[in-house]
């Protein structure tokens, strides 16, 4: 998805020109080649999506065994519908807060790391490999690992901070600062991913530009603002889109850390809880709402990229 957006401009111009016979045939072959992929997408993406939307208009339930009824928009706008659901509202709030915190830090830290490993120094290859380690660990495992490290009695973080006299008594991190702890884990895990995307963007910037700039007397800071940042824009947008969409559907870290704790329910956790409790109809309505919320962000980003391109 990201790469098609990055390559969008040529396609644009192409469409506006008049097409020759050869081009038309090429297009036909392209569609033919795309067909299998489109069929797979329809099967694994659009079919489940359609079923979910359909179910959100019913009172389908797992364990009740009563026949499923069509109830229209009741799951959305009824007296016990989504618009009155304060738990879901809290879940949206928690998720957005988490997204804002993690995407911001992952971007800033990822940018710093990308700039560092893009400059030439001894051991750069090893550095680039080591940088990816957190990202290579499955989230559930790294979450468990951090949970032990954050442990209130036996955790290594408390132990280190007490020994260094930063704090005088162990802190129950996951109880007292729940959002900060999961955000830290997510930032630790995903910053390398952002760094990798930005690094790819950095590597296509021609070095001649910097040489010319330094000949013209621009300092490093000016070079960063006037050359690096503008030319990195497509890579930055891709990184931000990926991270934002990922953060909005966060489930694993929260579930490992807090299970069903009320004030740390993300949209995805509330969604799974509802369905596990049997309310498939209502759960589907939540799924659709999450889909729409994420769609809003996609639209914002895509509009932004288009504006950029023109």
């Amino acid at each position, binding site marked *: 998805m990201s790469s098609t957006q990055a390559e969008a401009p040529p396609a644009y111009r192409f469409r506006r020109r008049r097409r020759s016979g050869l081009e038309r045939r090429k297009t036909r072959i392209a569609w033919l080649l795309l067909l299998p992929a489109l069929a797979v997408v329809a099967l694994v993406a659009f079919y489940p999506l359609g079923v979910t939307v359909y179910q959100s208009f019913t009172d389908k339930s*797992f*364990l*009740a*065994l009563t026949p499923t009824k069509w109830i229209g928009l009741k799951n959305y706008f009824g007296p*016990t519908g989504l618009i009155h659901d304060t738990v879901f509202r809290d879940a949206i709030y928690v998720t957005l807060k988490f997204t804002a915190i993690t995407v911001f830090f992952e971007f800033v830290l990822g940018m710093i790391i990308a700039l560092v490993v893009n400059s030439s120094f001894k051991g750069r*290859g*090893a550095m*680039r*490999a*080591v940088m*990816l*380690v*957190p990202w*290579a*660990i*499955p989230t559930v*495992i*790294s979450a*468990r*690992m951090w949970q*032990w490290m954050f*442990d*209130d*009695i*036996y955790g290594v973080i408390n132990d280190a901070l007490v020994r260094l006299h930063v704090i005088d*008594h*162990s*802190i*129950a991190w*996951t*109880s*007292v600062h729940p959002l900060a702890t999961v955000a830290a884990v997510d930032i630790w895990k995903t910053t390398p991913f952002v760094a990798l995307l930005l690094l790819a963007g950095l590597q296509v910037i021609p070095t001649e530009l910097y040489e010319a700039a330094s000949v013209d007397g621009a300092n490093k800071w000016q070079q960063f603002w006037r050359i690096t940042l503008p030319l990195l824009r497509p890579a930055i947008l891709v990184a931000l889109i990926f991270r934002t969409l990922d953060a909005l559907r966060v489930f694993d870290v929260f579930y490992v850390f*807090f*299970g*069903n*704790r*009320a*004030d740390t329910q993300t949209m995805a956790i509330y969604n*799974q*809880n509802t369905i*596990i*409790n*049997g309310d498939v109809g209502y759960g589907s309505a939540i799924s659709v709402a999450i889909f729409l919320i994420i769609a809003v962000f996609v639209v914002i980003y895509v509009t932004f990229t288009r504006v950029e391109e023109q």
Partner: protein
Amino acid sequence: MKHRAILVVAGLVAAGALIASISVAAAGTSPARHAALTAATVSPPAVPNAKAIRKKYHGQQITFVGDNAVGNSHVRDMNLVARFQKDTGIKIKLVPHPAASDAAYADLVRNFASHSSSYDVMMLDVVWPGAFAPYLVDLKPALGKQAKLHAAGIVQNDTVGGKLVAIPWFGDFGILYYRTDLLNKYGYSSPPSTWTQLDAMAKKIQAGERKSNPNFYGFVWQGNAYEGLTCDALEWLASSGGGTFIANGKATINNKNAAKMLNIVRGWVGTIAPRGVTTYTEENARIPFDNGDAAFMRNWPYAYSIGQQSGSAVKGKFDVTVLPHAAGQHSVGTVGGWQLGVSKFSKHKAAAIELVRYLTSAAVEKYDAIFNSNVPTIPSVALNPAVRRTNPYLKPAIAKVARVTRPSRYLRGKYNKGSQIIYQGINQIENGSNANSVLPRIQSQLNALLR
């Protein structure tokens, strides 16, 4: 060339990180599991009628969703399954269920909702038969006679609409673990009988022990937002005149005694209990207690045999008794325990029933009680001298405690949701909210569910 070298390095580092992380994760559970291997003093009994079973079902493969992989429970399952496999030739795939029982519930919901045949025999919490009854085989024709051996109350619980959808495997009730050496050291001759006494004793012991151990706490329990907290909260409320959440089909949780007791609990968090107790499950409570870092613990009987194993820092230094109560009230213990059921979608129901017949027999219950200090559901096993010797909580003074049940008979299929409302609310109180503002909300949510 250089790029390939980088890729190789990257691959090696990533693999190393994976191995390291897995061993870190495993290190968290290894002390208990390692010690468990030396704790076995009994061996699994032989399968009766093994020859006849072998003849009929030899070579069939069934999947058994057994106990979680913490403590001795999974080891017990492995031992029993190995014996059954050897005697009958029925192949068994043993899958431990998730440690938090609501996660185990979610797993079964997914399994039944998809009409999957991948699970044949499954462990069922005492509060689940009502919800899963439509998906379970009626065991009455095959195991009706064996069911008569078990405590009638639990068999009643497992009978839904006249069908025996599950059969009791082992029981559970909440008890108080206390350090005999520390009570002695600080001048107490007996364990606390009221919550006020527990509070005072925990404070004094904690203050004294902190001088040499900064991580020492007075009291630990299961405070995480999960099913275990519903059990603990039921004991707090029922032992202080606060009722049992729901009575006669109506929520009763919003009452003065309940609010008073829960605000006392809120006061314990961060004083006599670690601030992090609000994230503790059974094992998070057991580990500090077994390490000698806590004076009192609320837990199920399974923790007894682990605490008395070699390797435990409190071996021979602790005892168990009934949980405390409020002044003028009496002690209670929440009824827990697990049943075995056979899935309607199983492809090998008959072989699965044979496994259930073996596991719920008196001989296996005796083995389980000795090996894993679980509460037998067969009364005659509970009276067995060998069982009594290893399980002191079975002595009448403790075993006679009033048992309280979670409100699954009112909520049935909605129990999981109801329990979630309860434990999420109680967890908020533990984390600092006033019970007087939380309880009315729980009450109205429960009533909405009951309608």
